């Protein structure tokens, strides 16, 4: 690199930066991770009833997926802009935006997963006198899990990346560091934040995979979980 900020050495990677601003980096990393986890938790809690509803009342499946699709097409910056005047600058606005984006992938994969459950299995459970709720929770849900997990993985990775756009409302986690690094032409700050973002996405993805393995002991030997990745 021949680019130096006014004659000063300006490396892209610097341990010196971490030594000096480690606390600040850690703080933003924690904000970033907690925001992602919180958004995913809320998105799952909202998506599941919607998916079940779409499945029970097929007429609603189109409108639910359509609305989620339209919201998904609206760019993040525009969505934050539409929310900011009402929810203010800060965490709430970013959180709502993240939930909305995660919703489409989750709802779609949940519906695909629930629809893919073997009808014979459902019939057998019904024949044994399972109630609707029990059928859903103990038969359909576990069978739909591979597809749901695939959706969750996509949602998690996208959400980690999306948090950074929160800078427009002053709450972008690691994006805040990228943006400040850009304003002060501090290369190490931008690169560190970028690498941490990628690392966080990787860790989240791994955590979900491990969690899924633990939750689905029956799928461990087979390769079913892999083939079920519905289109993103």
């Amino acid at each position, binding site marked *: 690199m021949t680019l130096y900020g006014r004659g000063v050495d300006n490396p892209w990677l610097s341990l010196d930066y971490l030594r000096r601003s480690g606390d600040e980096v850690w703080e933003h990393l924690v904000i970033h991770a907690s925001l992602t986890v919180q958004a995913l938790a809320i998105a799952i809690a909202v998506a599941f009833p919607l998916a079940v509803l779409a499945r029970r009342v097929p007429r609603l499946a189109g409108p639910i997926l359509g609305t989620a699709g339209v919201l998904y097409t609206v760019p993040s910056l525009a969505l934050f802009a*539409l929310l900011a005047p009402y929810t203010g600058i800060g965490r709430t606005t970013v959180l709502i935006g993240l939930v909305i984006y995660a919703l489409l992938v989750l709802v779609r994969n949940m519906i695909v997963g629930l629809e893919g459950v073997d009808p014979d299995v459902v019939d057998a459970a019904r024949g044994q006198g399972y109630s609707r709720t029990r059928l859903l929770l103990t038969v359909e849900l576990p069978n739909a899990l591979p597809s749901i997990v695939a959706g969750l993985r996509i949602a998690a990775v996208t959400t980690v990346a999306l948090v950074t756009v929160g800078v427009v409302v002053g709450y972008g986690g690691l994006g805040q560091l990228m943006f400040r690094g850009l304003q002060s032409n501090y290369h190490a700050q931008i690169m560190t934040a970028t690498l941490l973002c990628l690392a966080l996405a990787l860790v989240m993805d791994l955590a979900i995979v491990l969690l899924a393995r633990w939750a689905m002991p029956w799928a461990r030997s087979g390769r079913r979980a892999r083939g079920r990745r519905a289109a993103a």
Partner: protein
Amino acid sequence: MSTVSDAWDYLTTAESWTGANGIFGTNFDGSLRFQRDSIIALTLEHLWMSFAAVTIAAAIALPLGLWLGHLGRGGGVATVISNVSRAMPTLALLTLFAASAIGFGNRAVIIAAAIFAFPPILTNAYTGMSGVDRDVREAAFGQGMTRWQVALRVELPLAVPLLAAGMRTSTTQTVATVPLAALVAGGGLGVIINTGLATQRYGQVLAGGLLVAALCLGIDALMARLERRATPAPLRNRATAAA
């Protein structure tokens, strides 16, 4: 003085559309540039930047995807590329480019947007070509067609629906990415939102959000139409994006 009525005022004032100084201006070096205070100019700039990014991406991804798909090799690479690009924050790439030798402004944005436009085109071209029925390919070879003829006259037409789907995904995504340009001193409709936030004019922020959302939904609808038109009628139900 509610936000909504401010947004309405902003959108119904002629000057916010035409700008105080017309649509085009000149840079210091005499080259043409879009004015940053007119919705029309910013929309044109937005579309121009998106078009440039998708064109660059397609110029590389289409031949590469078609070639790899024809050979049926490198599918793993395509998947890895699209997964990494999903994890890479757009803002990270934008700030990295802007801080590097590429510099601030539209060029950095176009390159970054082109990189994000790349994976959907590549994976769809690959899937389209490699997914052609093996029997069809065998039959073409059996009739004495050369490798090139099989690729261009048999596989390519059958891959068109997926190619179109890839172009649609990529274009919609690019038009949605370009608003972030405003954060690194680039142009496009994001400028309205960014300026509004910086000057605490929330009516303008809301108006900008609506404009960007409308543009994206409009482009997506247009591309859906083109995709449908590019797809031969019998293949229409099977055409689903692979990315």
